């Protein structure tokens, strides 16, 4: 069950990538909205760094968006 879900999610980008050239994406002159700071995938790097540190210290998971890292002997 879990493996099946994982395979699906892993394949998804490949499927999107393969079809991307046909139906996805924009021309350079259509990037007005995508170029805005708030459309950046890592919009606020400082917020993310602070959040990662909190949740790394308090929960059993880390990373995913970026490296899960070592970094502190947090309590």
């Amino acid at each position: 069950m879990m493996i099946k879900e994982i395979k699906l999610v892993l394949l998804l980008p490949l499927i999107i990538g393969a079809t991307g050239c046909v139906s996805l994406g924009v021309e350079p002159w259509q990037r007005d909205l995508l170029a805005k700071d708030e459309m950046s995938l890592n919009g606020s790097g400082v917020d993310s760094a602070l959040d990662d540190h909190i949740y790394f210290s308090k929960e059993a998971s880390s990373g995913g968006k970026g490296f899960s890292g070592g970094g502190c002997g947090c309590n």
Partner: protein
Amino acid sequence: MKTNTNIKAALTIATAALLGTSNAAQAETTSTAGVEESAWEFDSAFLFYSEVDRVSASEAIINATKTFADDQVLNLKLTVDVLTGASANGAVAQPNVQTFTRPSGNGQYTITAGDTPLDDTFHDTRVQLNGQWTQLIAPNYTASGGVHISKEYDYLSLGINGNIAFDFDRKNSTFSAGFSYFQDTFTPEGRIPKPFTSMLIGDSSSGSWDDDFSETRIGSEDTKTTTDILLGFTQVINRRMISQFNYSYSMVDGYLTDPFKILSVVSDFNAPDSGIAQDYIYESRPDSRIKQSIYAQSLYHFEHSVLDISYRYMWDDWKITSHTIDSRFRIPLGDTFGRESYIQPHFRFYQQSAAEFYQPFLIDGDTLPAYASADYRIGEMTTFTVGLKYGLLVNNGDDLSFRLEYYRQIPTNAGFDEPGVLNDVDLYPTIDAIIGQVTYSF
């Protein structure tokens, strides 16, 4: 405004001095032969995190980014944090007063009947430095490399990372592959306890105390390494939407036990004093962990607002699985208050299952398992975060924002039957925390 310019100029000089570059006074954008070199840009933030009756932390970050000619980007980040307060030591609450020895071995602390045992001796200051260099290495290929150093009183972490990204289909699609390697050294106060030995409790001023305490220790320091591999794919869906998919594989080897955590060993179900602690033993975790995760994130630009939503599924060979949903919705307020501003509600949901060796307590007389930990952070748990950020443009387009969030951790019983008196105490207390942050980007 003048003060702001002065701060920026001072920081620019300081950063340039650190790098040994000669253009120290250069604080404005210059153009050389058509390729643009930008001024330094700074993000600074101060964060306060406080749990009710437990840990408080203050953290300050200054992040400096400079884009050189040909889109080479240098990023430097300094983080300083201070942590104080109390942390659960792993033992269960009892109907009577409990006494524990401090991790250093110097002295004892007592816990009131009915209360979750918290060790209030934590005090640590951490300094972290990060440097990252990113540049085009060939048309459509971007490479990045970085270093990390973090030092606190009892902990040193050194790390390197590298990443390569390939853009294609008019830069609408990007594949990326990265790795990172961390080497951490832990030198805990009171040295490293022997797994599963009993916590020595008694008169720490007695003549034989130091020798007896040393008997429970195996060394003064230990290390762990973390190797991460991260594969990513980013796709522009249309003019309003962009998505990212990541897969990460993380190997952690070495000392993964928490030297400050213990487990209560309680009388069995049939004993007359069923559930009463007979002993406290130091926890023991496996010396390796393999974590994997998949991560998907999408941003969608509505007419004015922007929705940022992500999902992560994590699983590891400790049999922990977790789901994380994180979402932000940025709503521009226009010039409502005389300046361009926005509000951004934030909601995060997290749920994890327990590690296979997680035990809230051990039963006296049972055979010891290979590994055991009562750390609630690897137990079954759900957490929520709700928050609001308010941001506004100030002088010259500098960005000032305030963030206030509420974080609740709700540990739950992963199916353990509780003997005797443990039914009358709270083994899975909820933890509430407040997060406040001010960010200034200039």
